[in-house]
């Protein structure tokens, strides 16, 4: 615990707050011992004087030195604040634990009472109690203490409720230990730390509140004085000697800030650690190897390309240098074609989709030697024309339809927005188009549905609405990133059928990203297999089952259970674990897990080359037979 408390010293603000808190505490002890006489010395020749060599902060209406009085007042101010905090914590503990001690019914009543009391600001409660306890220091201590009690009560209640359900408390209860004993032995020690931290912050608050009450004349009464009282006396003569108000004001402020910031810094130290700086990205690397460019030259001659991607790289800054989860990906998608992208999580397939659609978060950098949608270069900076093209010609469907709609806006307006911004439609016709699109994705009663909020839609309906949103423009390409993963099995097929129907009706191209080889095989014409940020195989979907050449593709296909799978045997797996993008080995990234790997694989990275026309593979041992026993020996599942 001490180590964690001292973690406060790691931030400059924490160091300053700690030093200031210690200084205030030392002053509280020492100041009255040294300076009481100076503070009470009456200098009748110097009444209400401004700052001078004798009196640095001037004098009050009896000619007493303001600075000494301010210093001496530290003790009373801190004492009263600590006393009030102690009352608040004790009363809060009683309130907060009474629910646990007295049982459910009484507990509910008390927590309801606490909730009502917490709704009232502290100063109002303090005034209320100040009236009851009477004007003066004692009354004010109780007033501020009790005013703080509901907040501590609620905190304690929350903390107790968190511990109460833990196993060791249940165990103690089953063992027949009484509730008071459980509270003292098991619960209080576990909630002590947050309570102490909050009490420290509370002490800062109490100090400021006390100054407030004394400033109103309701707290400390003459001849005693705390900072608030000095402020109260000083403000009336602020035009004569401003220092008389400013000195105690500054003292209150510094002490209040010190306690408060010290508590906050400790709280932060006990919670999340401070994140260090991350080095910036180096300048863009020079143009990529020419070897691969020539490989995809064939695609470029194809004028039917909707999407043309070459040497795509995505880089993020990392602690130990840049991380490159996508390392040179080249592919094209023709009009109306359905291309599937498969791979384990972390293979870079989703990031490839985000990079192509220019949605990679701003911390990452996207580089490519070519990135074209319908012949328009997407690498250029964000222009209005480019936004309009992407907004109307490219539709995105994301994995989780639950979180992908804005919960505070009606469905209809979220769809209509696209037409309003990109097609310049007015509100009414944009909404009419939205209703029409909802109907086109088979949502019943689209007029009524358009007026509803996302939470009123079911998951499958939301995903269809997301597709409908993509159809607000006239998309040439739909990129769907795991569109069915978050959905119920029974509605997955509906969504896939819908995508298929749109494709057939309008000749829209589809890029379907999935970890599910079966789905991709069913829906798509062509499949890209990704591994460690690269395409390792690009083959017709029909060839997937029998004619795959890359050992990784063959392992993925083999890992899918079918009707003939013997369920008594463990499911087939790919041995080893996926490559960490921060630490990609030299040579073929798959070599470590590959049953065919040779010495060459570990040093030289194979390029993606045509095996037969329309079938590319990046492997030195493409198509070689695999010794099945080797693959089955280890027990790591495909994620």
């Amino acid at each position, binding site marked *: 615990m001490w180590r964690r408390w001292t973690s406060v010293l790691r931030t400059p603000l924490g160091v300053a707050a700690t030093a200031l808190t210690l200084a205030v505490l030392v002053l509280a002890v020492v100041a009255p011992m040294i300076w009481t006489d100076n503070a009470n010395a009456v200098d009748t020749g110097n009444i209400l004087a401004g700052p001078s060599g004798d009196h640095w902060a001037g004098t009050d209406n009896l000619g007493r030195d303001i600075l000494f009085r301010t210093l001496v007042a530290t003790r009373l101010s801190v004492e009263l604040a600590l006393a009030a905090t102690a009352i608040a914590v004790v009363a809060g503990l009683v309130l907060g634990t009474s629910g646990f001690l007295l049982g459910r019914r009484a507990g*509910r009543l008390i927590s309801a009472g606490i909730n009502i009391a917490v709704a009232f600001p502290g100063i*109002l409660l303090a005034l*209320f109690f100040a009236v009851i306890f009477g004007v003066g220091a004692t009354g004010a201590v109780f007033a501020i203490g009790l005013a703080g009690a509901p907040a501590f009560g609620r905190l304690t209640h929350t903390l107790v409720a968190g511990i109460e359900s833990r196993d060791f408390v249940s165990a103690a209860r089953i063992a027949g230990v009484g509730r008071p004993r459980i509270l003292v032995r098991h619960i209080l020690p576990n909630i002590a730390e947050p309570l102490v931290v909050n009490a420290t912050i509370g002490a800062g608050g109490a100090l400021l509140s006390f100054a407030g009450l004394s400033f*109103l004349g309701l707290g400390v009464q003459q001849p005693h004085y705390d900072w608030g009282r000095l402020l109260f006396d000083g403000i009336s003569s602020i035009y004569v000697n401003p220092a008389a108000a400013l000195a105690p004001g500054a003292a209150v402020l510094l002490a209040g800030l010190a306690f408060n910031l010290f508590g906050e810094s400790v709280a932060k130290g006990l919670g999340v650690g401070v994140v260090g*700086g991350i080095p910036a990205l180096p300048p863009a690397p020079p143009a990529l190897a020419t070897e691969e460019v020539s490989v995809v030259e064939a695609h470029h001659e194809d004028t039917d390309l909707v999407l043309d991607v070459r040497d795509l790289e995505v880089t993020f800054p990392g602690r130990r240098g840049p991380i490159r989860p996508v390392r040179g990906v080249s592919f094209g998608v023709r009009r109306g074609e359905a291309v599937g992208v498969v791979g384990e999580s972390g293979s870079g397939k989703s990031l490839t989709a985000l990079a192509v659609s220019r949605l990679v978060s701003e911390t990452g950098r996207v580089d490519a030697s070519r990135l074209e949608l319908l012949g328009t270069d997407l690498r250029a900076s964000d222009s209005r024309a480019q*936004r309009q093209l992407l907004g109307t010609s490219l539709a995105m469907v994301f994995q989780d339809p639950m979180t992908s709609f804005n919960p505070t806006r009606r469905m209809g307006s979220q769809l209509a927005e696209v037409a309003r911004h990109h097609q310049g439609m007015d509100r009414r016709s944009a909404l009419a188009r939205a209703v029409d699109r909802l109907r086109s994705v088979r949502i019943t009663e689209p007029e009524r549905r358009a007026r509803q909020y996302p939470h009123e839609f079911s998951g499958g309906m939301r995903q269809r609405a997301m597709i409908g949103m993509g159809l607000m423009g006239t998309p040439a390409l739909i990129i769907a990133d795991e569109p069915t993963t978050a959905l119920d099995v029974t509605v997955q097929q509906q969504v896939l059928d819908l995508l298929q129907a749109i494709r057939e009706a309008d000749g829209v191209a589809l890029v379907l990203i999935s970890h599910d080889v079966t789905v991709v095989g069913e829906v798509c014409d062509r499949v890209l297999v990704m591994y460690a940020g690269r395409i390792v195989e690009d083959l017709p979907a029909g060839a997937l089952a029998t004619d795959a050449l890359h050992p990784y593709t063959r392992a993925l296909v083999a890992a899918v259970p079918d009707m003939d799978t013997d369920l008594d045997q463990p499911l087939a797996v790919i041995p080893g674990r996926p490559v960490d993008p921060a630490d990609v080995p030299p040579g073929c990234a798959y070599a470590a897990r590959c049953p065919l790997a040779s010495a060459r694989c570990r040093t030289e990275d194979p390029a993606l080359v045509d095996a037969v026309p329309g079938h590319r593979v990046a492997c030195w041992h493409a198509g070689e037979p695999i010794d099945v026993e080797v693959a089955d020996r280890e027990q790591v599942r495909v994620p």
Partner: protein
Amino acid sequence: MTLASSVASTSAPRVGVLSHPWVRFGLRRLGRLLVSLWVLVTASFLMIHLIPGDPVRAALGPTAPPALVAARRADMGLDDPLLVQYWHYLQHLFTGDLGTSMISQLPVSQIVSQRLPATLQLALLAFLAAVAVAVPLGVLMGVLTRRGHGRRTELAFTTSSVVVGIVPDFLVGVGLVYVFGVNLGWFPVAGNATPEAYVLPVLSLAIGPAAILARIIRVEMVSVLEADFVRTARAKRLPARAIYLGHALPNALTASLTLGGLLLSAMVAGTVLVENVFAWPGLGSTIVSSILNKDYQVVQAIVLVYGVGVLVVNTLVDVALALIDPRSTIRED
């Protein structure tokens, strides 16, 4: 959940119009408001009876003749049984009768209605000023310090807003009086006679809450900008303005309002101290002088008015929350 919600749910069976989420939301909030009001009224009634000793004797002073004290006690009904007094108190409240000041002999309702407008103006203006500063500042800071951006800006803003947020309003007031009143002489420092006189009190009340609110909005904005639906909005290629203000802001405000609501009711109560710095002729300066004069009838009434103000603000915040984010009406079911 709480006593209030259980009261509301028994009065809202799930049939017909009562099962509509908005109706049930309304009933639940009404129930909570009524329970809180009852607690408040009862507390303010009990206040006079919890004061040690005889409040009439305390108000009139030790030299007042016993006959006068006895007569005044009889006037106020202080010799009746407690429940009878409680019943009369409630009856009088419903007719707008808040009793008579023991010091000035004026009807308390008259004192309150004279003083209330000045306090309302102060609180309302300060609230508007705080929101007008905090929302644009919080959104701007959120955008500037979104993930991977502006670490230095974030540190500077967070540190300064924490510090400014801790400074209590009356100390801000003292500082403003010194700088703009004593030194520069730009603004008057007492009363509310001229429009310029509003500047310093409103600022003292608004600065702290504005800093806290801006900080909350920034944090919410940063987390909302990471949300999936913001990615969807970006996928729709909306202009930055539409993404930040149309999609991110309403969601950031929802969470900010929950915490900001407490801040608003604190501002209502903050008028007490600020009014005393600036000799503002409102309820805040009246309650303090009445406490010092032991004019408990007036204190009791003003506590009640402040309490009702806080409850009204809290209820308005809840309703605003429900309008911005309709899920919050459902979430509590």
